[in-house]
């Protein structure tokens, strides 16, 4: 990663706490785990989705179905930017009638979530869709907001927010990078 770490936003303990809190909020507003399903957006959203499901099992003792969504084919900028790697979408549940929680690491412009909602709708008709993110950094370009947020992090639009997770990157941290840093 090219940029200099400007500030540590979340360390592993804080990430842990945030996920636990989101799990509780989710269960509270859904009145339990009944009818709940979780869909993580590849790559780090999928990791967080799996962790969230584990938290719910620990709290409620219930298995919530978890899937992954690849939104490459739903992006609105395919003609100018192409995902170097396309992953498989794997939803081991029928979204019809479920309350599906979309999970992503960072909420920024909202375009990814727009694409994810379109992708999800092609699989069925959920009763409702909720959004959980680890970090909301602002600068929305679409009328989208998160229902569950790990941490709101004010940023300048030229800064980069980098989320690293044990499963994909070997450690749990969220940092803000300088303006020459790579986007994550």
């Amino acid at each position, binding site marked *: 990663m090219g940029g200099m770490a400007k500030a540590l936003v979340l360390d592993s303990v804080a990430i842990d706490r945030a996920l636990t809190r989101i799990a509780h909020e989710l269960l509270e507003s859904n009145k339990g785990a009944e009818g709940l399903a979780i869909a993580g957006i590849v790559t780090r959203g999928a990791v967080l989705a799996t962790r969230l499901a584990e938290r719910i099992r620990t709290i409620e003792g219930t298995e919530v179905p978890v899937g992954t969504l690849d939104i490459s084919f739903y992006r609105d900028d395919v003609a100018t930017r*192409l995902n170097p790697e396309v992953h498989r979408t794997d939803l081991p549940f029928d979204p019809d009638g479920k309350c599906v929680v979309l999970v992503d690491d960072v909420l920024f412009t909202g375009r990814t979530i727009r694409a994810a909602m379109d992708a999800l709708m092609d699989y069925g008709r959920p009763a409702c869709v909720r959004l959980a993110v680890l970090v909301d950094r602002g600068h929305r370009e679409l009328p989208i907001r998160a229902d569950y947020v790990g941490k709101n992090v004010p940023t300048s639009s030229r800064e980069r927010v980098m989320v690293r997770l044990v499963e994909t990157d070997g450690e749990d941290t969220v940092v803000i990078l300088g303006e020459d840093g790579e986007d994550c």
Partner: protein
Amino acid sequence: MLSSKHILGMDDLTSDDIARVLETAESFAEVNQRRIKKLPTLRGLTVVNLFLEPSTRTRTSFEIAAKRLSADGINFTASASATVKGESLRDTAATLSAMNCDLVIIRHKYAGAPRILSEMMDCSIVNGGDGIHEHPTQALLDLYTMKGALGHLEGLRVGIVGDIAHSRVAGSLVPALRKVGATPVVIAPPTLLPSRPDVLGAEVAWDLDEQLPSLDVAYMLRVQMERSDGGMPFPSLREYARFYGMNARRLAAMKPEAIVMHPGPMNRGVEISADVADGDRSLVLTQVESGVAVRMAVMYLLLGGADSGVAA
């Protein structure tokens, strides 16, 4: 993203490109299983199917692929003879170019036609079969099918049986197999082999029965009598079937996990017996199904932007 703007022949694709097409096709294969098989991916882009030679299967496959990606698919069909008498291919290319399309798939009776389009047009060109030269997307879908059935490509021994000399399918499949580390063996009587089969980079055999036990795939080519100038290249269909037709006896001589493929349309009872064609070791329909996913992958990868930026 692929290393070439066009797919005129297998030479345009590296082994990495092939791997990427096959991986991407897996995702599209999943899409093709859904209730809603349509993606918004290529919305607003125009894909022209320029078919100057009759072809239902390939054209339909490309057409479905374009539609499932929400591209605007335009069919431009004309008989090759019309282009001889009136408008030349270059004129057609200039006309299409003026209409600003994003991708042209060309099927033509004559080798090298896709090259002419690529010289005349700014958009990407995909060879949908040119004369007896190449048919690269067929080779890609065949690789995809083999990989799906057998789990891997490297080290496979693939017998391509029949009219090698006049087969654009073989023209692409042989180099494609070599790029992925498989061994192509072309099996035919000398009258159906090109004059220098060694140039293709395939092993050459005249006797199918000798080869059967070592093959992982028997790829049966359609007998194309209409392409052979000056007399049939073998005495009769019956004799052809006797020496080169796939049937239950020959299938039994192959490895238990070996599979049979055919690019279609089949001449049942000639190059493949009906029971084998419709049997559980025939992947003919899987090939057709794979064709859509692979062509979706090709379109997606060719029309995706030049910037390999990471997702926001």
